[in-house]
């Protein structure tokens, strides 16, 4: 029996691993009534894969049998691979037993589409329901919404899951039609929009009635594959930006396409994974969400592609040298945040510290600023930088960073 389970786990974890979202954050479920598990606001990485990614959830497909034929997906119908499927109880047992051993924070369950969308979604919901009700499991559950399933099932899923996601898949409708002919933009956007409305409606109710039921407390996320199709970064980020604004998504994940299949519509196997590009997209994502940049400042018709050599914040600074140097002792928070080399936490510390004294260069160092970078862009009581010549500085910075580039999609976004 164990060999069979192991075999299935191998197949179904392998098929699920290209979905890069791994987060177990955003939910604060407490363990009530001596059940098992809870979730922490920021999530926990229990281990890291050899490619340096966080292992937080048991990420598997219920099955990799699929009726659809999405060109970029290993599980597509026309791909000749081993197929397998877990039963509901097998997934429940695996989750609980991994959880009890402190291997994981919870479950991330997705699936190929078998029979029809509703039939598939119904099984996913049943796993979550069994865990929550029968086993009083309070760990993290992330369910994939199957495009085209009914709204009732989405509602039910949201009562058990912490997070729901439906992948936007590709950065344009055209590409989607081309590569995932059975999916439509509508079948992806509709559940997103539907959930968003329910979540906001419930949040309003919650202001009046205290005890509204939990409903996807960690919200929605989505993933976009980049590098499989010809869209530029501006197109990619325009979609992401509107998803954040329109549907209140918590996270958009960018997944550099890993070419595993030979298909004339796709980059050939062996083409390198666009990891640097992926990293730049994440950085841009952060600029939009946490650094108060607007999209057109970072990407626009003149600059539709992110610079691969330097991060987008520095890139923006080079294009806007007239806004520098910034007076550390006077500038407002927003502007300090825009200085290359100053992150959110050091920006906050600067605002705090300068109330007590006039800051000099040495102070910046103790406040955790990436000094070598920032010094060109700020003046302090004892420093007035020489005029920055973008081309020269760029060269310098490239020299410095040459020796310590460890690129990763989800970490160390700005130093």
């Amino acid at each position, binding site marked *: 029996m164990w060999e069979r389970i*192991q075999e299935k786990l191998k197949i179904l974890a392998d098929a699920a691993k290209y979905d890069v979202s791994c987060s177990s954050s955003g939910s604060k479920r407490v363990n009530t009534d001596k059940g098992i598990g809870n979730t922490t606001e920021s999530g926990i990485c229990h281990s890291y894969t*050899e*490619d340096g990614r966080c292992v937080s959830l048991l990420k598997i497909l219920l099955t990799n049998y699929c009726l659809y034929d999405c060109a970029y997906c290993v599980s597509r119908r026309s791909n000749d691979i081993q197929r397998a499927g877990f039963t509901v109880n097998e997934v429940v047992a695996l989750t609980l037993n991994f959880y009890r051993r402190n*291997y994981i924070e919870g479950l991330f369950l997705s699936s190929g589409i078998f029979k029809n969308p509703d039939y598939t979604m119904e099984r996913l919901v049943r796993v979550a329901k069994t865990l929550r009700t029968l086993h009083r499991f309070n760990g993290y559950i992330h369910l994939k919404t199957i495009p085209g399933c009914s709204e009732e099932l989405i509602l039910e899923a949201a009562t058990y899951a912490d997070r729901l996601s439906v992948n936007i898949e590709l950065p344009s409708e055209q590409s989607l039609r081309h590569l995932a002919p059975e999916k439509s933009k509508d079948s992806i956007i509709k559940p997103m929009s539907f959930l968003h409305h329910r979540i906001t409606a419930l949040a309003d109710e919650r202001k009046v009635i205290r005890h509204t039921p939990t409903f996807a407390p960690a919200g929605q996320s989505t993933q976009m594959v980049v590098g499989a199709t010809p869209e530029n970064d501006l197109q990619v980020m325009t979609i992401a930006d509107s998803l954040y604004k329109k549907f209140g998504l918590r996270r958009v994940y960018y997944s550099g396409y890993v070419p595993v299949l030979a298909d004339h519509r796709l980059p050939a196997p062996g083409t390198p994974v666009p990891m640097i590009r992926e990293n730049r997209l994440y950085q841009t994502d952060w600029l939009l969400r946490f650094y108060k940049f607007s999209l057109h400042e970072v990407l626009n018709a003149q600059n539709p592609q992110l610079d691969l050599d330097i991060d987008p914040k520095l890139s923006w600074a080079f294009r806007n040298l007239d806004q520098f140097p910034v007076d550390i002792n006077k500038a407002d928070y927003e502007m300090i945040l825009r200085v290359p080399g100053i992150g959110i936490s050091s920006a906050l510390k600067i605002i705090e510290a300068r109330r007590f004294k006039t800051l000099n260069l040495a102070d910046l160092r103790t406040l955790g600023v990436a000094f070598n970078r920032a010094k060109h862009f700020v003046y302090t009581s004892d420093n007035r930088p020489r005029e920055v010549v973008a081309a020269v500085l760029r060269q310098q910075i490239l020299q410095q960073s040459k020796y310590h580039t460890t690129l990763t999609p989800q970490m160390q976004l700005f130093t």
Partner: protein
Amino acid sequence: MKDLLVYDGSFPGLLTAIFDVYERKLADVSIVREHLYHPDLYATVRTITRDTHKATRVWQGLQKKLATEIIDHFYKSFLSEAHNVEDTLLAFTRYVLGAPPGAERNFAHPAVLEVMQLSKKVHREKHRMEAFVRFQQAADGLYTATIEPDFNVLPLITGHFKDRYADQSWLIYDDKRSYGILYNEKDGQVMEVTAGVTHSATPGEDPDMASIVVHDHEAAYQTLWKTYFQTTSIDVRKNKKLHLRHVPTRYWRYLTEKAMAGP
């Protein structure tokens, strides 16, 4: 002559020692843990007996003066077991109790800086342990884990594990410090255990984790977990350096997915 206060290594013990420093108005003084104490000819040695009453008074004095967050740093830096941490904490106490409010954030003061830095390290390891503890289920159902943290973090992780694993009995044993925390699912209590009194071991015997009879399913789940771990890595994205930064090799020994010998 310099005074040398020798205490039992416990937190209340240290607070008692600090109380004595104040009570006797000792100026040139050093506090050391019993097991680190080396006879010193040039000091007046006093042995401190732990005293709950005195300890509480010092603790309350600090709490009155400091924000909970700073109190937390104080305790965490104690758990670092750093060499001379007692003297740092004494210097810290003297400084903050004598200075105007807000002094505990003056990072220019060496004791303040040291306390913050130690606390940060301990806090980081607390997080790591919450992530890296790996339980094995014993034949009688008890979930056991062994750890060897750099710092004494068991007191800090108790709450986390108690909240999370409320419906299973578990034991986390610090092999470096020879004590553990045992949660009993029946009464919902956590108690401290030392070698010899641990569950599944006969009294007086060393609680050798490896010799506890494991549950029938245990090996299977460990294999499944390893399988999962290996499968989930994407080979073309391999990044060994990053991997090691997140999971330093010194922790590998007790990580199921990293342990060399299979079950």
